[in-house]
C-alpha cells in the first residue's frame, strides 16, 4: 500500500480530520461565527467595490464629487449615504475605504510577521549576543506608543498613506519579534526539539520543521488581532490629517472632514449624522470582526482547550 499516492491520500485524510474537528469547534463558539461573518462581509465589499461603486476618476481611490458647496446633503435616492462636506459621495467613500483598509492592514501585518518571525526565531533559537542586541533594539522601538512614533515618522517621511504604511512596518515588526522569541524559547525546551538534534537535524531543519510549525498559530492569532489595531491607528493618523489626503477613500479621512458638522444645525442636532456615523460604524465593525476572529481562534487552537 505504501505507494506515493497512498501516502498523499493518507496525509490529506489526516489533515481533513483535523480540519473537520476545528470546523466543529468553530460552529460551537458563537463569537467565531460572528467574526467570520463580519470579515466575509467586508471581503465581499472590497472585492466587489468596482461593481457596487463604479469608479468615476482615473484613480479609483479618489471619491467622486457632486458639487462644491460645503454643507453635506442628507441621504437621498442617488446618494444612499448622502454627501459629505465638499459633496463627496459617502457611499463610494466607505465602499472603497474597505479596500484601502484591507490594503493597509494586510500588507503591513503580512510584512511585519515575516520580518518579526524571522528575527524572533533566530534571536530566540541562538540566544547570546545576537539575542541581547535584538532585544535592546525591540526594547527601544517598543519604548514608544505606536501612534506617537508613527506620527514622528510620518512627519519625517511626509504625510500620505504610503509613508504611514512604511512607518507601521518599521514599528510593528518589533512586537512580532518579541512574541516569536518568547514562543521559541518555550518550544526550544521541549524534548522533541532535542530529539530532533539527537537524530542529527541541522539547525535550519530544527527551526523550520519543528519550531516554526508549533509557534505559527499564536503568531497568526496575534496577526488577526493586529490587523484591527493597524487600521485603527491608520484611521487616527488620517483623522489628524497625516494619513490619506483630502478626497481619498479612507474612513479616518472621511471622519476628519465631518468634524465641524457633528453638532448638526439649529433645532436639529443630528442633521449631518451620516457624515461621521456611517464611516465610524464601518471602522468599528471591521476591527470588531478581526478581534472576534482572533479571540475565537485563540480558544479553538489553544492546545489545552482543544484536547480537554
Amino acid at each position: 500500500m505504501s505507494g506515493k499516492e497512498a501516502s498523499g491520500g493518507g496525509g490529506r485524510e489526516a489533515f481533513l480530520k483535523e480540519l473537520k474537528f476545528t470546523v466543529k469547534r468553530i460552529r460551537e463558539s458563537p463569537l467565531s461565527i460572528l467574526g467570520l461573518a463580519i470579515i466575509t462581509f467586508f471581503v465581499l465589499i472590497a472585492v466587489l467595490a468596482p461593481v457596487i461603486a463604479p469608479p468615476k476618476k482615473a484613480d479609483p481611490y479618489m471619491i467622486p464629487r457632486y458639487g462644491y458647496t460645503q454643507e453635506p446633503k442628507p441621504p437621498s435616492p442617488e446618494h444612499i449615504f448622502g454627501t459629505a462636506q465638499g459633496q463627496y459621495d459617502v457611499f463610494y467613500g466607505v465602499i472603497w475605504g474597505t479596500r484601502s483598509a484591507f490594503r493597509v492592514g494586510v500588507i503591513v501585518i503580512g510584512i511585519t510577521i515575516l520580518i518579526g518571525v524571522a528575527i524572533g526565531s533566530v534571536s530566540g533559537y541562538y540566544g547570546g549576543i545576537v539575542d541581547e542586541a535584538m532585544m535592546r533594539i525591540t526594547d527601544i522601538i517598543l519604548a514608544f506608543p505606536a501612534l506617537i512614533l508613527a506620527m514622528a515618522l510620518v512627519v519625517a517621511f511626509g504625510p500620505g498613506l504610503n509613508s504611514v504604511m512604511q512607518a507601521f512596518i518599521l514599528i510593528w515588526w518589533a512586537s512580532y519579534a518579541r512574541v516569536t522569541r518568547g514562543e521559541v524559547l518555550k518550544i526550544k525546551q521541549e524534548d522533541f526539539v532535542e530529539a530532533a538534534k539527537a537524530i542529527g537535524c541541522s539547525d535550519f531543519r530544527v527551526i523550520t520543521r519543528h519550531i516554526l510549525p508549533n509557534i505559527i498559530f499564536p503568531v497568526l492569532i496575534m496577526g488577526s488581532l493586529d490587523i484591527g489595531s493597524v487600521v485603527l491607528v491608520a484611521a487616527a493618523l488620517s483623522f489628524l490629517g497625516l494619513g490619506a489626503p483630502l478626497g481619498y477613500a479612507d474612513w479616518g479621512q472621511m471622519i476628519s472632514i465631518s468634524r465641524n458638522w457633528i453638532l448638526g444645525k439649529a433645532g436639529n442636532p443630528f442633521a449631518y449624522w451620516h457624515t461621521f456615523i456611517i464611516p465610524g460604524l464601518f471602522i468599528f465593525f471591521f476591527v470588531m470582526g478581526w478581534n472576534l476572529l482572533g479571540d475565537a481562534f485563540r480558544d479553538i487552537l489553544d492546545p489545552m482547550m482543544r484536547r480537554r
Partner: protein
Amino acid sequence: MEAFLETVNLKKYYPVKGGVFKRKKADVKAVDGISINIKKGECFGLVGESGCGKTTFGKTIIRLLKPTFGHIYFKIPEKVRSDIKELEKNSNNSPELNRLYEEYDLGTFKGGRLKQLRRKMQIVYQNPSTSLNPRMLVKDIVAEPLIVQGIAKGREANEKVLGILSKVGLTEKHLYRYPHEFSGGQRQRIAIARALITNPEFVVLDEPTSSVDVSVRAQLLNLFQTLRKEFNLTYLFVSHDLSVVECISDRVAVMYLGKIVELAKTEELFKNPLHPYSQALFSAIPIPDPTVKKERIILKGDVPSPVNPPSGCRFHPRCKYATEVCGKREPQLEEIKDGHYIACHNWERI
C-alpha cells in the same frame, strides 16, 4: 575483549549566571568526574534521586551535551587505548596524544563526524507527550532520521518505517495520525521506533517508563528486552524507580550528587548494598508485601546543592558512619570484589 563504551573522569558543569551583569558566578557540577565501562550488549542501570545528574550523564555520553572535561571512547581498539594511557603518563598534551584524542574521543567530535555518530547512538525520553512533535504525522516522525541521515527516501523509507513499527507493536493504520491521538504507552512505542530505525548500537533510556501506567509499564519493559536481543543493542537505563531497574538491568550504578558511589551486578547490589547511601536508598523502597515489616534507614535533611557540594565525600554530612577522613579526602571508585566497585573510605566497618 574490545571495550564498547568508556568514559574517563567525565564532567559536565552548567554555568550559574547571577549578579548585575549576569556574569558566570558559579558552576552547577551536574556530572563531576565519572569513569565507567559499558560492555557490548549489556543493560547498564543508572539509579539516583532527582538532581543527582543521571540524565545529564546520559545526554553527555551520546554527545547531546558537550562535556566540560574528560574523555568518551566508543569502540576504541585495544591497542590505541593502551597507547593513549601510555602517552598520558608522561605529558597530557603532546601533539601525538592530541591527534589520538581528535580521532577517538567523542568529546572532540564536531559537524559531520558528530552527525555520523548520531546513527549509532540514540535516546528515548521520559515523557511521551513532549518527545514527539505534535504537528507531525507518525509516518514523518519515524522516517525523519532516515531522511536526515540520508539512509533512505520515499518508498524505501516508508517500508523501513512499516518494518520498525511492526517490531514495536504498531501497524500501518497508525501511520497517518498525529501524536495526540495515541495513549501514553503507544506514544512511547513511536519514540522507540524513531530511535531504532537507523539501527543504532547504543541507546540511552531516560526514565522511559516513569510517566506511564503500571500495567503499560510491564508491556514496555518486555518490549525493551525483546528488542535488545533482536537488534543486539546496548542500553543505559536511567531511572529513579529502583524496582524497574532491578528487573531489567545486568549491572547497576548508584549516583549521588554528580558522582557514582557504588557499582555492581544487579543481584549482588540489591541483596547487600555496601555504600551507606545505597543502603538508605534500597531500604526506602516500599515492599509490596504487608507481611514484611522492615526496619528502615531514614536519611535526615535534604540533598545539598550541586553548586557547592560538601568537601571530601559528598555524602559525609548525612552519613552515620562518617569519620574525620570523609570530610577531607574524596574517596575514589575502587574495585573491592570482582565487579563490585565502591567509593567509600570505611566501607569495611559498615
